[in-house]
């Protein structure tokens, strides 16, 4: 197992290099000039020239890239052009927020998505199945910002149970922290639960038709044991892949949800950074997310082996 993990980690290096190259060149192709965004309404040419020199924007692009990679390898992601804070500090302050929101959203999605998927597969063609499908479809198709604003109206403005938006760090007050995150986590989770439900349902339907399930039933096992132990465990394989992918996506920042609920996570940071052409921040976030994705892929592979013993010898 350990050699497997090490091998996978090593193979991730070329991917990371490619990702960094892509991000670097792509954003140089963006129209608009970071210095112009920084120089504001006044647009003093002398100031703009000074800033270009200061942030090495006059250097040829390959040189800028080499310089950036060199710094990143030493743990320095550069400085935000807009606020002059070190990107590392920004990443360190946003990452826990985004991870917490992602974990909560994923828990909500799993708790709703997998059971409804199982139930609707088992009761295929019944009213329960249709109801679950309608729920899943609404989860997928209702826009996040709309659901977010409706929930704010109900729970914050009318009932006044929860704060309308904002964020309290976990370390400051656990109760308040959960109160600020429950609505955004629900908005994100509801959407994902629809996706999970649909996949669980189709995976379960396939497995339920398999011979070994028929055998298990023929042996006279309780239907519950057949469904949960024999069918679900085998149906989980594609769900694990999907879940890790969804989690990776959540790490990239839930742009709209974070915007609506004013959650200071990756999503909000990257949108601001792109609009202000804050190159260093964009690069830092994308690289961070790419690393997260690679680690999650690795995690998915490890989980496969745990769920499916046949893969362990491979």
């Amino acid at each position, binding site marked *: 197992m350990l050699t497997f993990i090490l091998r996978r980690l090593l193979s991730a290096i070329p991917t990371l290099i490619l990702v960094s190259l892509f991000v670097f060149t792509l954003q140089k192709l963006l129209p608009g000039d970071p210095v112009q965004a920084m120089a504001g309404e006044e647009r003093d040419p002398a*100031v703009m020239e*000074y800033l270009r020199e200061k942030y090495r924007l006059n250097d040829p692009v390959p040189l800028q890239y080499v310089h950036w990679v060199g710094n990143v390898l030493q743990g320095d992601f550069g400085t935000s052009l807009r606020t002059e804070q070190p990107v590392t500090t920004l990443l360190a*302050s946003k990452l826990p927020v985004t991870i917490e929101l992602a974990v909560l959203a994923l828990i909500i999605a799993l708790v709703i998505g997998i059971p409804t998927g199982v139930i609707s597969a088992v009761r295929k063609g019944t009213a329960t199945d249709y109801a679950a499908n309608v729920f899943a479809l609404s989860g997928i198709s209702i826009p996040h910002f709309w659901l977010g604003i409706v929930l704010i109206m109900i729970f914050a403005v009318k009932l*006044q149970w929860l704060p309308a*938006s904002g964020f309290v760090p976990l370390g400051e007050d656990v109760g308040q922290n959960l109160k600020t995150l429950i609505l955004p986590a629900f908005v994100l989770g509801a959407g994902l639960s629809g996706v999970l439900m649909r996949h669980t349902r189709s995976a379960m339907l396939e497995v339920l038709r398999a011979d070994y399930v028929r055998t298990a039933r023929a042996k006279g096992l309780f239907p519950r044991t057949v469904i949960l132990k024999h069918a679900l465990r085998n149906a989980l394989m594609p769900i694990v892949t999907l879940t890790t992918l969804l989690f990776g996506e959540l790490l990239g920042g839930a742009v709209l949800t974070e915007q609506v609920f004013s959650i200071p996570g990756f999503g909000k940071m990257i949108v601001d950074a792109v*609009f202000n052409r804050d190159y260093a921040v964009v690069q830092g976030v994308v690289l961070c997310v790419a690393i997260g994705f690679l680690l999650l892929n690795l995690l998915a592979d490890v989980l496969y082996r745990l769920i499916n013993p046949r893969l362990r010898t491979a």
Partner: protein
Amino acid sequence: MKFAPLMTTALLLLAANSAFAETTLRIGIQDDPDVLDPHRSRTYSGRLVYTALCDKLVDVRPDLTYVPQLATAWNWSEDGKTLTMTLREGVTFHDGETFDAAAVKFNLDRARTLPDSLRKSELASVESIEVIDAKTVAIKVKQPDATLISQLSDRAGMMLAPKASATEVGSKPVCSGPYKFVQRVQQDRIVLERFDNYWNKQAYHFDKVIFLPIPDTSVRLANLRSGDLDIIERVAPTDVKTAKADSHVQVFSTPGLGYMQLMYNTSNGDKANNPLGKDKRVRKAFELAIDRDAINQVVFEGLYAPSAQPFPKNSPYYDKNLPIPPRDVEASKKLLAEAGVKTPVNVELKVANNPIAQQVGQIIQAMTEEAGFKVNLIATEYATLLNEQQAGNFQIGMSAWSGRPDPDGDIHQFVTCKGGQNDGHFCDPKLDELLNKARTVNDQAQRQSLYFEALRLLAEDVPTSYLYFDPRIIAMRSNLTGFVPNPDGLIRLNDVAFK
């Protein structure tokens, strides 16, 4: 009976607690400010924070006249080349350093010389700063500059503590305002707390002031209505009805200083080679096809102020005799025929890619079509739009200006031949002469006549069509009292308190 003493103690404790309860004011702002250094910052939301954090030499009143803040009095020398300011006594910075003439010199020099200072153009006329004594400073200018006081009423006149500012400012600004900096969490909050040694501390009633950036206007309002915020700024006109209907909320709307304009590319590169760029009659025809009032009613619920000049109505330089040209399609068609252009006249209109700007663009597109124009509307992301306009890659650019209390800042850089923001490269030496002179004249009546003359030239040549002024709409919980709105939209907290 046994409970009686216990109850009394509990009640007493409760009472004591509420008497010492910390009062916190939470202000929802539209976006996260950039670097918190008055000399290098550019965002409007930054100015909102500075209003509580950093005092300026002078302040501006709702009627756009100037009043003392850190300078208690000032006067110009006979030749208009020396501004002598008397400074307030007993003022200290948040770190305890004393505010004096040397601090003023330090700050003005810093604003003038810091390589990435954005205040250089605002203080371009300043030649030197002399410390006369601890409480008197003399600012010498290269040529008479009527705009200087106005510049000192904003970021260029904000005072940082010299010792603390020798190193890092942006992440921990040390000023002398009523509230001092505590903490900033990027994109989340900026926390300030009461400064106990403030010279006018009896006028400030909150222990803590927290600024929370919330970009979505309806979410900002929802937070106010639910009581999670106490004040919000830049309320969307479409939200005003909802806000007014809520008994827990009060709304303040005041005409602002910022305007929207259509700038025509008259001679910046190849894109200027079209009937609109070359013939003022075609531009005039375009302007005549626009109904400013309809734009106001349709997009802004009638809350904006349609205008055909760059000065707001409450400015002494607003020309009452310069009417807003009413929409006249026939006259517009006639002008096009006179100019001998083939209709429809194809033109490109670039607007920012936000919903409001696009909506205004669409209305202009529909209105001008009736007169014989075919507008190709191009929505461009803001940073890109700036770039393209400067590079001359536009025919008409719709862009906003945040406005300045002094008229010079609203006109000179946009229409003078070498103006930094004159993206259309319009050039009329006669106009330059008027506007350059208006900069140097301190007498209001004399200045007025220069600006009125300039406005007349602009109306004649139409290098730009002014559309409207946006109001500054601020909403707050109804349990707050004492707020006085100002055209600059900044939230001054003096005498504001919970009922």
